[in-house]
């Protein structure tokens, strides 16, 4: 038994299969960053840090005429989203009920996906993660509220990347509001905005909950590196007569190796999550 302690849970094999399937189904659509960055691993729960290949000088060497350097690494961050499932619901599932209530699991899947997306795109200072948008040296344009304003900044971002010698195809991550605006819109003449943007990018347009605005980035590979320790998994915490307490968990690090391979598109006239955090 590993650290997830799954065998201690009062769940049948069919319950676990249901929970794992539901968790994977609910997480996958929202895990936007994984659709556009390089994914390495999973390296396992015991993997603690990403090799940066860099060193820092260490003073106070306890001998004369000896130099010293210490490796710099990026520690992996652990994310965990707790949820509960009614044991009565699971017993009903064992009886063949087709519609068990897994609402808390669904919500936890969304929360952890949002956290992963936000860390990769906007960074997470406390976890020493520099996100794609914040690491980019480019001063990205603003996505205005009108749909006519979308093709120009996206095309401008692609042209900027080409100018830097950064090849495509290119992908576009869009926050929830921006994505909704794109998929519900047709330009003058009725041509769907989504198709127009896809032609500009040559790559996918991805719904990215947890992202403010958007970001255009190269998909050529080698620029944005997500390293997974333990990939998303469901573990057991405890249970009582009524419910079993479980959690979704993962460990990862993220490195923007080529920050200039992305151009952020800023959200218009809204208080962004980062701004809210900094004000809190």
């Amino acid at each position, binding site marked *: 038994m590993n650290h997830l302690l*799954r065998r201690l849970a009062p769940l049948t094999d069919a319950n676990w299969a249901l929970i794992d399937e539901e968790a994977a189904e609910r997480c996958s659509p929202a895990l936007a960053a994984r659709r556009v960055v390089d994914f390495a691993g999973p390296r396992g729960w015991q993997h603690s840090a990403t090799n940066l290949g860099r060193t820092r000088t260490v003073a106070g060497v306890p001998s004369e005429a000896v130099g010293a350097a210490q490796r710099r690494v990026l520690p992996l961050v652990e994310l965990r989203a707790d949820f509960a499932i009614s044991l009565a619901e699971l017993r009903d599932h064992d009886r063949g009920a087709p519609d068990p209530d897994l609402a808390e699991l669904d919500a936890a899947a969304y929360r952890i996906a949002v956290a992963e997306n936000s860390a990769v795109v906007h960074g997470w200072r406390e976890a020493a993660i520099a996100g794609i948008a914040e690491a980019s040296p480019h001063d990205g344009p603003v996505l205005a509220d009108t749909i006519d304003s979308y093709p120009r900044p996206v095309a401008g971002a692609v042209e900027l990347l080409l100018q830097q010698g950064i090849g495509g195809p290119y992908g576009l991550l869009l926050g929830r509001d921006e994505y909704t605006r794109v998929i519900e819109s047709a330009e003058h003449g009725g041509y769907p905005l989504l198709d127009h943007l896809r032609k500009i990018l040559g790559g996918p347009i991805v719904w990215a909950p947890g992202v403010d605005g958007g970001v255009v980035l190269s998909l050529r590979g080698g620029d944005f590196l997500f390293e997974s320790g333990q990939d998303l998994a469901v573990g057991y915490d405890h249970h009582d007569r009524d419910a079993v307490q479980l959690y979704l968990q993962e460990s990862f690090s993220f490195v923007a190796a080529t920050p200039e391979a992305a151009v952020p598109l800023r959200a218009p006239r809204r208080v962004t999550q980062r701004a809210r955090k900094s004000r809190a």
Partner: protein
Amino acid sequence: MGFDQYHEPPGELPAATRTFARMCASLTEEAEAIGWYQQRLAVETDAEAAAIMRDAQGEEFKHFSMDLEFLLRRTPAWREIARGVLFQQGDIVEHGEQAEAAATADDAGAERTGGPDGSGSLGIGSLRGTQG
């Protein structure tokens, strides 16, 4: 064209099993090639030719290793036993017996371990190239 890697009618096999069988066949071919190069190198007297053969054998080492890793990732029980045998110091047979015994003992809870690699992972991994 023959389909010798299938022991059962291919039409009755699921796609994942056909892939698994193809990779097993590939693993076998890489191992054969490694053995052939080893024999050729043992008798080759031309240094330049031997250098090329050594380089080619290195390619086969890589192919074999990649095939093996693929198969281990798709087969938790095999991976578990391999983990107890590969890259260990000491008696290989002893490690093999111990690893097999441990994997067999774990079988009772294998389904609860979950995930394609037996770690409990949901197996999501990279989503590059998938539809949102």
